[in-house]
Structures are given as structure tokens and as C-alpha cells.
């Protein structure tokens, strides 16, 4: 049982690392493939705020818990 919990926490850490996209990288790719303005706005705003969710997920899985 304890082993399972460790596995899940490690998975959450990995997910938190890969899920939070970077604002500028998203913008660069969006410009290259020519996405509509509104999609770019949403992507930029999302990547600005998603760090908060990612940090919370990381905190949630941290061993100090």
C-alpha cells in the first residue's frame, strides 16, 4: 500500500513538471503555425496562470506532506 502511494506521488510530480507549458514557447509556436489571435490570447493567458496549478500539484506530492 505504501509503495502505491509513493508511485502515485512520483507520477503527480512528473505530471506537474510536464503539464505547465511556458508562455513564450507557446507564443513562438503559435506564431510559427499562424493560429488565430484569440487562441494565442487564451494560450498566453493560460500559460501565465498554469504555473500556480503546477506548483500546487508539486506541493501536494512533496515528501514534507
Amino acid at each position, binding site marked *: 500500500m505504501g509503495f502505491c502511494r*509513493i*508511485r502515485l506521488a*512520483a*507520477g*503527480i510530480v512528473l*505530471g506537474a513538471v510536464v503539464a505547465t507549458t511556458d508562455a*513564450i514557447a507557446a507564443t*513562438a509556436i503559435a506564431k510559427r503555425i499562424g493560429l488565430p489571435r484569440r487562441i494565442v490570447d*487564451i494560450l498566453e*493567458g493560460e500559460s501565465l496562470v498554469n504555473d500556480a496549478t503546477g506548483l500546487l500539484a508539486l506541493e501536494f506530492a512533496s515528501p514534507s506532506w
Partner: protein
Amino acid sequence: MLSFAVIADYFPKEFAARANGALNLLHFGWAFTMQYGIGLVVEQWPSQDGHYPVAAYQAAFGLSLALQAATLTWFAVPWLRSFVRQLYLLFAPRHAGPDDQLTLVATAAEGASLRPLKVWNGETNAVADRRIVLVIAGLLLSFVPGIPNVSLNPDVIFLVVLPPLLYSAAWVTSWREFKFNLVSICMLAFGLVGFTVAGVAATSKWVFAGFDWRLGSFWEPW
């Protein structure tokens, strides 16, 4: 004293006094900064009866000497400058000007932070390309034996690196458009990220069986 005469030549006559004043400020400011910095380095060693060990001073003065030697090399060896410039042009063949030294510094800073500074308008593509080169170069370097394993305290990232990055990203964000798309943005930023985290957590069990991502990469094993 020679530097005051030299710098006056670089500016129009009416700015000479101001340039010299700025240089003077730099002289004294830098002297204070150096003293403070040497104190910071020395403090890293434990003190005994109010004294710091000899090694602390050796490290501090050695660091200062190394910095000065590097600066002297930078100015005294012109081919080094042209070499770095060539290297830079290699990485950024599309828009780099030959005298773009500020850009060179910004590139190094951006490589260290893995996020480009938004100093060039519309050049994010080239910036992203160079970023990839820097990441791959760093990755390859880590495989070279003998290179020390640098460990970084996560607090440094959270308290020093992340705030200015988020601040600059927030600074260039159009808040009118942000408000207009608020619902979509919140759904993606909280819902999608949570969903992705949960999905990766569920699937990583099978994909990376037997590997604990928290060990080594992020926290010390407890």
C-alpha cells in the same frame, strides 16, 4: 584617472561631466559591491572566535582575481571577442547583427533561465531555436565525465528566478484580452493542468515502472 580623460572623448562635450560623474559613481559603487561580495563569500565558512579561516579569504580573493583576469582577457584578446561573436552568429544566423553585444548577454541569461526575455519584437522563433541548442548542449555536457553534479536549491528557483519571469510575462499580457477570455483561460489553467497531472500520474506507473521521479531530480531522498 586615465579613464576619466578617455571616457570624456566618447561623449559630446556637454555630456562629458555627466559621463565622468557616472563613471565615478560606478567606481565607488563597484568598490562597495566588491567588498560586500567578498564578505558574502567569506561568510560561507564557519567562523572561529570571530575569525574566518584562511581558505575563506583565499577563495574570495581568488574569485575576485579570476573575475579580473577574465575581464582583462575579454578586453585584451580581440580574437576571443570575434570568436564569441562567430559562435553567436552560428546560433542565430537570421537576425544577429555583428555588434549585438547586448543581445549576446541577453542570450546567455535566457539560456540560463530556459525562457527567452522578450527583448526582441517578433523574433521569438529564432530565440526558441537558440534555446533548443542551449538545452541540447547542456544535456550533452552533463554526460561528459568529470563535470560536477550541480544541485540547485528549489527555493532559489521559486524565490529568485520565477518571480521576475512571471512578472515580465504578466507585464506583456494584454489584460483586456485576458478578461475577455477569462473563463477559457481559467478552465485550461486549472482544469486542464489538473487533468494532465492526473493523467500523467496514472500512466507513468506503466511507462516508467520502477523509477521514482522525486529522487535525485527534485528532492533529497528522505
